[in-house]
C-alpha cells in the first residue's frame, strides 16, 4: 500500500497518493502487532503532510499566468487562424488568440492599436470590453466605453452596437452597472468586419431555427427545424428525410445569410455556416440527416 502511494505521488497523482497513505495509516493504527508501529505511523503522517502540501499547491495554481513575450509571440503565430492572408485579419486573430489564452494585458494593448484601423475598430472595441470583463475589471471597461462615447471615432450605429453588446455582457454576469447614455453621438454607417464571428459566450440557448433559402432550387422557401443539441455557437439540427429537397442544398461550407433563431427569451436574425452533414445510418431516425450550423452573426 505504501509503495502504491509512493508511485502515485511520483506520478503527480497526489489525491490518489494521499488516499493510499490515509488507508495505510488507518491500517497501522488498527493493528497494534505491527513492528515499529510508532515510527511507521510518524513516517506515514509526515508523508501525508508532504502530499497534502503538494496537492494544495496544484489546486491553488492559477488558471492562467502571464507568459513570456516569446511565448506570447508563439501563441499569436500558432493560434491566429485566418482563412485569408489579409494582414488586418491576421493581426486581429493574433490579438484574439492572446485573449483566449488569458494574456489580457498584451491582448488589450494590441486591440487598442487595432482600433486605429477603420475596418477593425468595432471588432477591436468589442474585444477590449471582453478582455476587461474577463479580468473582472468592469470599471475600466466602463471608462473605455465612456471615452469612446466622447470621442468622434465611432458612428452612432457603432456605439449602439457596442452599447448593446456591453449591456448584454453586464446582464449575463448579473451586474448592476449603469452605462452612460448615447446622447449626441453623430450618425453614420458602421463598418462591421465580416469575420467578426460571435464569441461562444454571446450565444444564448436556441430552441429552433428557420432557414430562409436565398438561392438554388429552394430559393424563396423556408425550413423550420428544432435544435437537437447546442455547444456554444454550433447548433445541431435533425432534419427529416421528408425534407430531402432542402438538405440537398445544405452541404458543408454553405453560408446561410438569412437565418431566424428562436430562443425562450428572444427571436433574432443572423447568419451561419454548415459545418457538418451526416445521414443517420441506423436507429429510429435512420435516413434522416444531422446538420451542424455554426452561427457566425446575429442582429
Amino acid at each position: 500500500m505504501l509503495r502504491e502511494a509512493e508511485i502515485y505521488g511520483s506520478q503527480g497523482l497526489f489525491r490518489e497518493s494521499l488516499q493510499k497513505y490515509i488507508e495505510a495509516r488507518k491500517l497501522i493504527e488498527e493493528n497494534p502487532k505491527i513492528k515499529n508501529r510508532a515510527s511507521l505511523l510518524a513516517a506515514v503522517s509526515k508523508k501525508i503532510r508532504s502530499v497534502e502540501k503538494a496537492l494544495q499547491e496544484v489546486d491553488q495554481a492559477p488558471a492562467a499566468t502571464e507568459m513570456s513575450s516569446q511565448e506570447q509571440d508563439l501563441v499569436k503565430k500558432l493560434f491566429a487562424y485566418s482563412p485569408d492572408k489579409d494582414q488586418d485579419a491576421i493581426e486581429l486573430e493574433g490579438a484574439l488568440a492572446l485573449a483566449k489564452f488569458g494574456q489580457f494585458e498584451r491582448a488589450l494593448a494590441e486591440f487598442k492599436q487595432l482600433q486605429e484601423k477603420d475596418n477593425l475598430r468595432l471588432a477591436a472595441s468589442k474585444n477590449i470590453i471582453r478582455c476587461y470583463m474577463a479580468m473582472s475589471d468592469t470599471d475600466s471597461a466602463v471608462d473605455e466605453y465612456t471615452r469612446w462615447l466622447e470621442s468622434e471615432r465611432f458612428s452612432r450605429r457603432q456605439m449602439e452596437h457596442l452599447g448593446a453588446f456591453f449591456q448584454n455582457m453586464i446582464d449575463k454576469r448579473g451586474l448592476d452597472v449603469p452605462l452612460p447614455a448615447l446622447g449626441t453621438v453623430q450618425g453614420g454607417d458602421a463598418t462591421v468586419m465580416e469575420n467578426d464571428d460571435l464569441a461562444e459566450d454571446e450565444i444564448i440557448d436556441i430552441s429552433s431555427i428557420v432557414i430562409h433559402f436565398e438561392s438554388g432550387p429552394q430559393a424563396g422557401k423556408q425550413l423550420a427545424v428544432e435544435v437537437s443539441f447546442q455547444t456554444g455557437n454550433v447548433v445541431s439540427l435533425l432534419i427529416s428525410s421528408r425534407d430531402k429537397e432542402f438538405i440537398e442544398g445544405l452541404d458543408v461550407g454553405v453560408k446561410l445569410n438569412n437565418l431566424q433563431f428562436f430562443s425562450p427569451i428572444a427571436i433574432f436574425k443572423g447568419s451561419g455556416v454548415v459545418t457538418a452533414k451526416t445521414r443517420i445510418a441506423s436507429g429510429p431516425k435512420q435516413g434522416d440527416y444531422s446538420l451542424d450550423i455554426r452561427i457566425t452573426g446575429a442582429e
Partner: protein
Amino acid sequence: MAVFNIRNREIECKIVYYGPGRCGKTTNLEYIYRSFTKQVSGKMVSIDTDGDRTLFFDFLPMGIGRVMGCDVRLQLYTVPGQVKYSSTRKLVLKGADGVVFVADSMEIRREKNMLSLKDLHNNLKGYGSSVFKIPLVMQYNKRDLEGQIPLMSIDQMKKDLNAQLKVPDFEASALTGNGVGATLKECLKLTLKSLQRELKWTE
C-alpha cells in the same frame, strides 16, 4: 486544418496529444524530441506550472521529408489534461488533423480516461468533427509500471475506450519510449491519408 501550399508543394499538419491529466502526453513529446533528432525541426516549447503540469500546451515542430511529392511539416501539441483547463484544451484542439489519445493504464485512472475521451468527443463536436471522423490513435501508456501497481489489462482498456471506435491502438511507456514512435507513425499515416482524400493531393 492543414496548411497546403500548392505552389511550394508544402503541407503542414497538426497532431494533438489528448488524454487525462498526468497520463504522459508531455512525456511522449519529450521522448520524440530526444529520439527523433533528424526529424525535429525546432525547439520543444513547454509552458507549465511549477508542479510540471502542462498549463497551456507543449509544442514540437517536425519535418518528415517528402511524401507523395510534398514536403510534410508536422506540428505536435499536447493539451493540458487537468479538468480546470477545459477552455485551453479546446483551443489547442482547434484545427487538429489527427489525434493521439493517451490513456493511463493505472487502474485508479480508469474513470478519468473515459471522461477525457468523452471530453475529446464533445470538443471535436464543437468544431464539426467527432472521434469517429478524425484520424485517431489510442495509446495505453505506463505499461512499464506492470507488477508495481494495479494496472488495467489491455483487454479492459480496449473494452472501455476502443470497443466502438476500433482505431489502431498501442501499448506504450512514454518514459522508456516503448510504443511512442509506433503511435506517432500510425497517427501520421492516418492523418496523411485523410488529408490526401480531403485536399485531393496527388504527386
